[in-house]
């Protein structure tokens, strides 16, 4: 809501500067978002000095002027041929600036002549109604200076953010009244001449057929009006508030809407069939061509103003094209009403139209303001549109509004605020918001009709706190029992997980929960894949954020791309976030997933080792470290069934036989689709399952004493066929039930000469330890000999 200080001052004497007024409003709950200077916002409207004037023969109606703004010299074309002469200082708008008439100034050319801006009339500068004459500035003005500075003209406009509960502040008068409440500065009351309420007999009929939609409907007839341009002061005020002037009648309705917050609508009397005005719900599929040029179809839930034959207006929202006021209108009917805010809001949403009028009706207008608005507009129509006759005021008001009686016990104020506002202050404040009576235990308040937001005692407590001043209420600490719960085990688990990954060098990213369905397509998923059964947004901002993610992988790959194209050649990232799957009810299944990604180089350029790319053993190693730290045993089963991973470099991850995720290298073909010319490894794990296991393990955890006696190791080195996997050998070793064996590990693999092609040399180390003594060499040798023999036999191994 834009509040010009000059307009506001008509209702209340402002005793401080506009900045201080803004501070008072803001601290009273009416936030001033901006202090605007609309003239300055127009752009560079400056003084220029005319140096030379030409009237070339090939330009009929134009003169070419050479002018200076004090710095540069340029040409300007003007139709005011007779008015321009050298040495004159005139008002001028530079290209890109705006004129009062909402015109954007541009560089123009006519034939070979260029105009670098335009000369302004007083009207175009927003100074007076003078349209024909150029704005001539005093001789001593310096070229280049703002015309408003030269003329000493300034307007300050407060831009207020009005909260939805305070419809009463959507007007100049409403803000003045609020300032009065906050400061006690004197408010100038609205006064209307008595005769204005009277008039000739109304020449038609008004009826409310839908009393749920319309609580009050008032109006009157005006005869023989003159539709023309509004006087300058009306135009200027509309402009200051950001509205465009149209004609005097429309401008007056807008003027009163801004001034008093009462929306009005003017009908062309001629177009009202049967001179009957009906407030009714629309007929199903009833249509109306509206003022914005769009024809809309209504439902029975919409409220319309109709005549004997047709709908004329979508009530409280927007009028129809046909019955609106035009240049040829002679008689009008002026409506001032109070519609049901809920009905207006629903219609406005159904048809996606918000107007100054619907905005106010939705937020509750003052039921008593209906008549004030009508009278104020009458005053202006008589004066400005020169109406010759006018009717009585018709006021259909079946069930007059009455405010609730709110009982407010004093003790409740104290308990709620934790502070006792002095009783006389409380009474003074309550008197500002309604009729207040003292009762045995506190107060009874009947809020003023414009304060329909006040319904319950808590609302009044807010008024007390607000008007007394939030800043004046002390701050204390709550008293409460000491008992409290820490973060849940699951949050702790998540924290542990990310701390481990962080120390492994991974950075945590956060990507959007909504993704491009195409990014899932790119992953080459099979048709029946659950991840293609995603939840779609009904109103996405863009198609690339239109479905809820079913995997973290697309977001991670996007992040890899973003970094890759910014010269990041080594990336280790992870994300912990929800993925979303549909269920049978409204809510989704939202499991928490972990995604990790490695891209490019495994190390940075350095002096002690060669650069190398990440490989599958890096990914596996990181995941192993993670699971080991969590003490969870995960099986890495080659090969993954994920269609976007290179089969030969992938695993599915299993926990007690249940698949909890996958890990592997992304296929080059898929990376190509993302233009990623590097290697990318990813892994994804369902943390819900992992967490369950973790919680159980945490509970069962016992700590062993470190061994007392030394261990000893023996190696088996042999040559085997290349295809034999180390895992097969280790699995075989497990079946041997070897006594005292503590651990087994492959510690060396070698291929190449002198080992024959198709074979490899391996070394497997066995560590032995007894809990209660130091093992003897001979004992271990005997065990190891048997083990070696079994391995040699089983895998047809040859000694090295």
């Amino acid at each position, binding site marked *: 809501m834009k509040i010009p200080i000059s307009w506001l001052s008509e209702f209340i004497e402002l005793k401080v500067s506009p900045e201080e007024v803004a501070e008072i409003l803001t601290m009273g709950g009416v936030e001033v978002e901006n202090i605007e200077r609309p003239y300055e916002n127009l752009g560079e409207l400056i003084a220029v000095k005319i140096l030379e004037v030409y009237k070339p023969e090939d330009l009929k109606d134009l003169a070419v002027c050479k002018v200076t703004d004090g710095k540069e010299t340029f040409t300007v074309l003007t139709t005011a041929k007779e008015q321009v002469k050298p040495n004159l200082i005139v008002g001028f708008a530079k290209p890109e600036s705006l004129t009062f008439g909402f015109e954007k100034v541009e560089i123009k050319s006519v034939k070979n002549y260029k105009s670098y801006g335009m000369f302004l009339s007083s009207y175009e500068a927003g100074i007076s109604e003078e349209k024909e004459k150029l704005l001539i500035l005093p001789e001593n003005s310096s070229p280049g200076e703002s015309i408003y500075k030269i003329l000493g003209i300034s307007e300050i406009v407060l831009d207020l953010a009005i909260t939805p509960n305070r419809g009463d502040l959507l007007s100049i008068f409403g803000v003045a009244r609020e300032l009065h409440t906050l400061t006690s500065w004197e408010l100038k009351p609205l006064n209307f001449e008595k005769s204005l309420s009277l008039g000739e007999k109304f020449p038609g009929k008004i009826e409310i057929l839908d009393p749920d939609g319309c609580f009050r409907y008032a109006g009157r007839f005006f005869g023989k009006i003159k539709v023309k341009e509004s006087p300058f002061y009306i135009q200027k005020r509309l402009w200051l508030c950001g509205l465009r002037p149209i004609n005097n009648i429309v401008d007056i309705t807008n003027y009163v809407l801004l001034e008093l917050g009462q929306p009005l609508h003017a009908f062309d009397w001629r177009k009202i069939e049967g001179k009957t005005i009906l407030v009714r719900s629309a007929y199903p599929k009833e249509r109306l061509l509206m003022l914005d040029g769009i024809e809309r179809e209504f439902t029975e839930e919409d409220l319309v103003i109709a005549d004997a034959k047709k709908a004329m207006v979508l009530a409280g929202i927007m009028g129809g094209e046909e019955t609106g006021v035009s240049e040829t209108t002679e008689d009008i009917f002026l409506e001032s009403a109070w519609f049901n805010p809920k009905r207006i*809001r629903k219609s406005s949403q159904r048809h996606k139209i918000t107007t100054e009028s619907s905005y106010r009706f939705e937020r509750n207008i003052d039921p008593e303001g209906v008549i004030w608005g009508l009278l104020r507009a009458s005053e202006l129509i008589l004066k400005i549109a020169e109406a010759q006759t006018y009717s009585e005021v018709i006021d259909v008001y079946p069930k007059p509004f009455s405010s609730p009686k709110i009982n407010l016990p004093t003790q409740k104020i104290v308990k709620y605020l*934790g502070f006792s506002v002095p009783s006389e202050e409380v009474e003074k404040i309550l008197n500002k918001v309604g009729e207040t009576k003292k009762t045995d235990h506190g107060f009874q308040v009947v809020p003023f009709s414009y304060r329909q937001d006040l319904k319950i005692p808590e609302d009044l407590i807010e008024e007390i706190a607000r008007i007394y001043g939030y800043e004046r209420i002390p701050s204390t600490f709550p008293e409460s029992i000491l008992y409290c719960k820490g973060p849940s085990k699951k949050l702790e688990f998540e924290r542990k997980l990310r701390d481990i990954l962080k120390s492994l060098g991974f*950075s945590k990213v956060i990507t959007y929960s909504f993704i491009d369905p195409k990014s899932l397509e790119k992953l080459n998923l099979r048709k029946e894949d659950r991840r293609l059964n995603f939840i779609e947004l009904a109103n996405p901002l863009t198609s690339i954020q239109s479905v809820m993610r079913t995997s973290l992988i697309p977001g991670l790959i996007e992040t890899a791309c973003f970094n890759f194209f910014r010269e990041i050649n080594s990336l280790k990232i992870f994300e912990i976030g929800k993925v979303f799957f549909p269920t049978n009810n409204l*809510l989704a299944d939202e499991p928490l997933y972990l995604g990790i990604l490695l891209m490019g180089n495994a190390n940075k350029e350095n002096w002690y080792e060669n650069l190398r790319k990440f490989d599958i053993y890096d990914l596996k190693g990181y995941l192993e470290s993670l699971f080991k730290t969590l003490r969870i045993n995960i099986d890495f089963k080659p090969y993954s069934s994920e269609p976007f991973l290179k089969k030969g470099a992938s695993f599915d991850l299993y926990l007690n036989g249940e698949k909890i995720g996958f890990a592997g290298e992304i296929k080059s073909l898929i990376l190509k689709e993302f233009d990623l010319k590097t290697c990318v490894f990813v892994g994804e794990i369902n943390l819900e399952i992992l967490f369950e296991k973790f919680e159980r393990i945490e509970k069962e955890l016992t700590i062993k004493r470190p061994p007392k006696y030394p261990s000893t190791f023996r190696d088996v080195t042999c040559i085997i066929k290349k295809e034999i996997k180390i895992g097969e050998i280790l699995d075989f070793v497990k079946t041997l039930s070897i006594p005292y064996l503590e651990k087994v590990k492959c510690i060396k693999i070698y291929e190449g000469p002198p080992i024959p092609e198709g074979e490899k040399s391996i070394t497997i180390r066995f560590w032995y330890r007894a809990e209660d003594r130091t093992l003897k060499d001979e004992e271990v040798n005997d065990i190891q000999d048997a083990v070696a023999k079994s391995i040699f036999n089983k895998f047809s191994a040859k000694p090295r």
Partner: protein
Amino acid sequence: MISDEIEKLKKEIWSSFEKIEDLSQLESFRIKYLGKKGKITSFLKLLKDLPLEEKKLLGKELNELKDELEERLREKEREILFKEEDKDLGLDLTLPGRSLSIGTLHPLTQIIDELCQIFSRLGFEVVTGPEIETEYYNFTALNIPDWHPARDMQATFYLKNGALLRTHTSPMQIRAMLERKPPLRIVAPGKVYRCDADIRHSPMFHQIEGLMVDRNVSFSDLKGVLIYFAKEVFGEKTKVRFRPSYFPFTEPSLEMDIECVICKGRGCRVCGSAGWLEILGAGMVHPEVFKAVNYDTEIWQGFAFGLGIERIAMIKYGIDDIRMFFENHLLFLQSFK
């Protein structure tokens, strides 16, 4: 006289001892005086021909000399060995070490952690909940019926099945109250969504919600807790102010501003010349909200607050484009180590 000889020997020994500089000199010194054919050994051999008294006396003297010398040589050897290790090792210590790089947590994660810790210290339990919500939890139960203009304050993403992406963390107030019995204290961090995208608005962002319900918890207490919070996050000297505001689910409602951290209240680009930065919204829980969860408003009252994590991060770190949080540029992330 043999004893004169010994005196001479002693002098010789100690003066050449002083000259020992390295292990080889030390070894030749040891051989020269203490070896099998060494001078002390030779003197000891000479003693056997002397009278008993003299033999005893000189023998003792020589043995003492030998012992002392051995002791001194051991010390000397240790001294030299230590010195040896201090010599130039031929290393270029200007080279960087073999460092490992540690990852970073996302700045928003760090802020969420910090805020959760602050409120945990005040006994608030950290809870989380669904991001896909129903109209009921997101709006209706929070006293925002479907015709309410307050719905305009939050442009909502709807799903095709009629559910929605929560527009704030406030539904967690309802969920937490339904799951628990009063008194309670919770904070609920998480992602929220609104149809809005520019350099100040992201369609996905983070909030943290707080709720305290107790018998006497008051508006003054709310102020106290929020001031504590602001000082913990922005520093002890942070100035705050409270402005009346409006949220359908609180009454009275307020917004808290902190003095602009950039210009210290003088007015700048960040705070838009106001000198104050809006940090959070809060208020006393509206009776309609308590009604929705069946809490008796004769006994229980409480306060709730909610704030944007991105906003806190942007103010704290002077970030002017919210989109940077979700681009995840590695260099951006790493600046929050």
